[in-house]
């Protein structure tokens, strides 16, 4: 392989493809980091909410509903689900002595149940919705499927919108206040219980949205929730819990590191490298790249 071929066929597309995968990871990690950072809850069933979103898109799409409409409908349908999960599972143990461990265990149990339920309802086989935007675009010899270009653009828009709501609106300020000091926020008139339920539901809705967007690329099957979980947790830790920009930077960086490592060293090393990064951050910079939202 000559140097020019290597650059054109291998290195350059690697960066573009890595970008699309990075956006996918950021989308999954976004809801996780919000729930983790603001509620201090480890949601082990986040991957299963992502799977529910993907299955909802698949089933509703098969029933004839347009993909563009699903992008709005599925996240809205996820909100009551998230509210119910928060009310029934998180709130009863929210004040326990060891909240991290208890919520982790409860959501771990939920993940087991949801995964099996999906199999009962939709069967064990892999399914895949049609690609909403077919075709590919060629730029200077690099081929990029149109849907991936769309994913990169939409992903950027979603992240910006979420960041705007959290950092720039009154609603976001209330959420951050409640996360920072619950009692203080309550005494200032913030409806803390509602804010917590809403935040959890928002994170769940984001997972559902990621499911709708990624189903055409990564396909849909009952155990798909486990797919992103280690990577998503790593992104949250490296980026800093609750930090939206941290998740973006960490998500994009880690997928590039993975892609280049699989090229230069060997694909087998991608997992140990991700894990090694997580350990290094936990040991040397536990607050992550950007520190923790609401606890700065």
């Amino acid at each position, binding site marked *: 392989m000559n140097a020019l071929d290597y650059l054109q*066929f291998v290195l350059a597309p*690697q960066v573009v493809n890595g970008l699309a*995968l990075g956006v996918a990871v950021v989308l999954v990690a976004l809801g996780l980091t919000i729930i983790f950072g603001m509620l201090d809850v480890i949601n082990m069933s986040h991957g299963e909410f992502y799977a529910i979103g993907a299955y909802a898109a698949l089933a509703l799409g098969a029933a004839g509903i347009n993909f563009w409409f699903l992008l709005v409908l599925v996240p809205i349908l996820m909100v009551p689900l998230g509210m119910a999960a928060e009310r029934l599972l998180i709130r009863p143990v929210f004040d326990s002595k060891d909240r991290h461990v208890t919520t982790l265990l409860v959501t771990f149990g939920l993940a087991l149940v949801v995964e099996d339920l999906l199999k009962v309802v939709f069967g*064990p086989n892999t399914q895949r919705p049609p690609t909403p935007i077919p075709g590919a675009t060629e730029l200077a010899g690099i081929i990029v499927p149109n849907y991936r270009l769309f994913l990169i653009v939409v992903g950027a828009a979603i992240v910006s919108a979420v960041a705007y709501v959290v950092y720039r609106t009154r609603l976001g300020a209330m959420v951050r206040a409640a996360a920072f000091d619950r009692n203080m926020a309550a005494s200032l008139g913030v409806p803390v219980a509602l804010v917590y339920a809403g935040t959890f539901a928002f994170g769940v809705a984001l997972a559902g949205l990621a499911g709708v967007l990624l189903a055409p690329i990564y396909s849909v099957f009952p155990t798909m929730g486990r797919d992103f979980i280690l990577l998503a947790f790593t992104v949250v830790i490296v980026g800093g819990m609750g930090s939206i920009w941290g998740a973006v930077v960490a998500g994009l960086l880690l997928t590039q590191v993975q892609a280049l490592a699989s090229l230069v060293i060997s694909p087998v090393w991608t997992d140990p490298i991700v894990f090694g990064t997580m350990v290094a951050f936990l040991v040397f910079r536990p607050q992550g790249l950007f520190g923790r939202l609401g606890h700065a």
Partner: protein
Amino acid sequence: MKTTGFLAAALGGLLAATALTSGALAQSTPIKIGVVTPLSGTYTPIGQQVRWGLELAAKEINAAGGIAGRQVNLIFEDEEANPSVAVQKAEKLFQVEKVDFLAGTVNSGSTLAVAQLAERNNKLAATTVSFADSITTDKCSPNMFRVNARAEQQSVALAAWLAKEKPNAKVYYLGPDYEMGRSTVAAFKSSAEKTGSATGGEVFAPLDSKDYTQYFGQIRATRPQVLYTSVAGNDTVRLLTQLQDFGLLTNLTVVGASGTVTSQNIGAIGAAAEGFATGVGYSPQIDSPENKKFVAAFRDATKADPDLYGADSYGLLFAYKAAVEKAGSTETDKVREALRGLTWQTPQGAKTIRAGDHQAMQPMYVVRVTKGKFDIIDSVASDKAIGPDACTRF
């Protein structure tokens, strides 16, 4: 827990006692066949085919008077595609249910572990799915039989076809990074190189890879005519649809292992599966009266098409029936002798169990996906595909 344990133990003892006293009546009691197969977890779809195939065969055998006048009774246990669960469930079937024969294991780890357990319990077992060569070569067992085609039979057939279709093609190899993936790639590579193909390069992707696009650059730069892959299940869905999205499927012949594209994932792959070719022991398209009857009955019972796992599992019960009737007994030693060298009819054609390694010899087919169906495009006679007997234990 205590009381359950006691009750269970007491019950088990009671059952054992009744089994002893009723020995004389054995002739009219049903023949019990245990099935340890994944009914949950990643391999569920395969376990489903195994179950459907065996249930259909048992129904037909029972309707026609059973095996040597005795009805067949199937007992299913979920092995969760985990060898430690498989062994525990198999032991339950051997010890508590006193099954006469065991079938159903899918992943090769489970098959190997169950083979050892069968030896220690002096019972016979068979696999209809695992295709790792080791099961009937260096890790062969006198108590394990395999009625499906092993990896080498598949690659020989596929390589023979490839040499005719694309002589001296440059082949790129993409396998899943674990023992099975590496050995299937190695097996096909040696078959293909013998028939004149050149190797363009190879890469092994971790299991459950999300994105295969990171390997596409290397593939494009090599400019191969043929891509061989041995990924399976969801991984195939991702690999093939991503190849299609990137426009790489034009002018590229994709071939692979028999488990790469199956009836479980072909729907999800859709148009990206078009043209995929593989070497297998079965296709619903086989043009014989036996197969047409089998496919019709299978669809009738399950609303699905049989695939190689369903067909091989269906055929197994008929081998067991023939062996028991020939031996005139269900005793392990007699049935083993009867199974060795046995030739019997299946929807796939005549199969023969080679006495030296317990591997079934069978005609092999090369099938290619056309309009979502596997069309047979070539076939290899059973003795041409089988390869030497490499089992030294018996």
